[in-house]
């Protein structure tokens, strides 16, 4: 579905991503992990065409990204960003309806059909009860759901998530990730998620891409990627890795220097 062919990108002098190649298949749940500044967010921005790579190219269903216009991209790829600015008090419904924008084009007003799609998206994300409240009044977890609903209103094939669980407590983390997993498994949506939290990434993702200073260090199943050698070499700190007692997926524990 998405193919990156040795893409390199820089904002100024220094390369932020170098010679990155990978494929994401339809229906996959892929995690992008790596230390701060390893290029995770930049990679996502390249995947939806906000930025264009200086070298290499990205294909979406075999079509070069740079040949697609913004509206086409927005109909197929939705993004849930880390934090969205809320300057003026739009309601939940108004915010979710904004997801219909790529289909409206020059039209100024949404149709009944758009409203119905937005309503379904809110039902799915369980935010229908507060559809008329201003988004700014909601809690962090509810807000995240609003932006997932906005993404669903775009009727995309791919959803890109940037640090979706940052700032959420564990209840809302699980809620949110279960919702994403359902979308992935039941609706066949392709998910690419950049995350700091390697335990979450290894628990939920089919495949992981581990970035180090803008290059792919390793790519594969969580078992292949989340190993003591890989993590210690990329992050430069000592960790302990065993298996999650329930799922059997790799689990990272931090070790304090000098032991306890």
């Amino acid at each position, binding site marked *: 579905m998405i193919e990156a062919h040795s893409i390199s990108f820089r904002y100024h002098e220094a390369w932020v991503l170098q010679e990155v190649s990978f494929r994401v298949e339809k229906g996959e749940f892929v995690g992008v992990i790596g230390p701060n500044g390893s290029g995770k967010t930049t990679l996502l921005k390249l995947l939806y065409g906000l930025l264009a790579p200086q070298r290499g190219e990205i294909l979406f269903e075999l079509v070069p990204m740079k040949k697609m216009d913004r509206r086409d991209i927005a109909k197929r790829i939705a993004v849930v960003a880390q934090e969205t600015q809320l300057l003026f008090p739009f309601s939940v419904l108004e915010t979710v309806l904004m997801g219909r924008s790529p289909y409206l084009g020059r039209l100024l*007003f949404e149709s009944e059909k758009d409203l119905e799609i937005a309503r379904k998206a809110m039902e799915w994300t369980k935010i229908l009860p507060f559809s008329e409240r201003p988004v700014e009044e909601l809690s962090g977890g509810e807000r995240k759901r609003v932006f997932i609903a906005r993404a669903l209103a775009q009727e995309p094939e791919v959803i890109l998530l940037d640090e979706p669980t940052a700032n959420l407590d564990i209840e809302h983390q699980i809620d949110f990730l279960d919702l994403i997993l359902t979308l992935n498994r039941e609706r066949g949506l392709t998910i690419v998620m950049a995350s700091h939290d390697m335990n979450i990434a290894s628990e939920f993702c089919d495949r992981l891409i581990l970035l180090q200073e803008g290059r792919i260090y390793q790519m594969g199943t969580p078992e292949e990627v989340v190993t003591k050698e890989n993590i210690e070499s990329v992050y430069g700190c000592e960790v302990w890795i065993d298996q999650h007692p329930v799922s059997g997926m790799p689990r990272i524990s931090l070790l304090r220097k000098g032991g306890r």
Partner: protein
Amino acid sequence: MKIITLKKVLTISILLGFVLIVIILISITMGSVKVPPLRSIRILFRAILGLKGAGNETERTIILSLRLPRAILAGFVGAGLSVSGATFQALLRNPLADPYILGVSSGAAVGAIIAILLGLGVSSFGLPLVSFLGALLSIVVVFYCGRQEGRIHPHTLLLAGVIVGSFLSALIMFFISLSQKEELRTIIFWLMGDFSFSNARSILIIFPYILLGVFLLYLRARHLNLILSGEESAVQLGVDVERLKLVSYLSASLITAASVSVCGLIGFVGLIIPHSVRLIFGPDHRLLIPASALIGASFLVACDTFARTLLAPVELPVGVVTAAFGGPFFIYLLRTRKAIRTL
């Protein structure tokens, strides 16, 4: 479910349009020369219907050639400044933005002062023309400084606007220090915003710019909503953000340039009208733009009527009235915003 529909926008616009017409009608019945209200309105309607006029020659001149054009002009300027202010607040994502924030006003002021010092009479074509040219020049300079690699960065643009504005303010001070007593009074009235510089022809000069600007902005009303949550967010929803910014900035700047060129720097309207309208009708530009235009127009016609009549026969600069009424009213809205929002 509550959303903005075409029907809602039209209903509210028609209601507000009706209010505007009533305020214009009241405005033409008031002034230092007493013309009975009913006769004033009869003069107007008979003139519109092309019938032989009521009242005497003097009264017809006062109503049809002085008060009516001035009210219409105030309406256009009020509408233009309000829509321009709303646009700058959205594009710069700064609630304190107003139509003058990018230095357009200072360019216009330098032009106007040069015209005054050159003695290009206050109600001729000369002053608005030179002032408009000054405004256009400042727009070009600010955009030239505020663009990098073909992209507009709101913060760079804002800085460029502030700096160009400060430089032009220095020029303004320089010219003021050179001016004589009588010119000084004219300059100060212009800087405070004053319709006595204008006449019926002023309407013809500015209405194409204001109508075109507001129309271009309204076409983009839905996209202006999207850019409120940030440029990246708008791109994610398929908006060509660079084009949106370019067209919107230029439209809003042109509206401002046209407005200030005929009546000077009328403050407060472009700041408080969009905010007041947001507090009442919400932040959606599809309603915000027409409602701001109509309420802004009503507000400025009313303020100008007060400016003409409060101390008649002495005229106050309208900017004094907009600030005097606008400030306290805005504070009142802010204090009661919760109550307003639940309506």
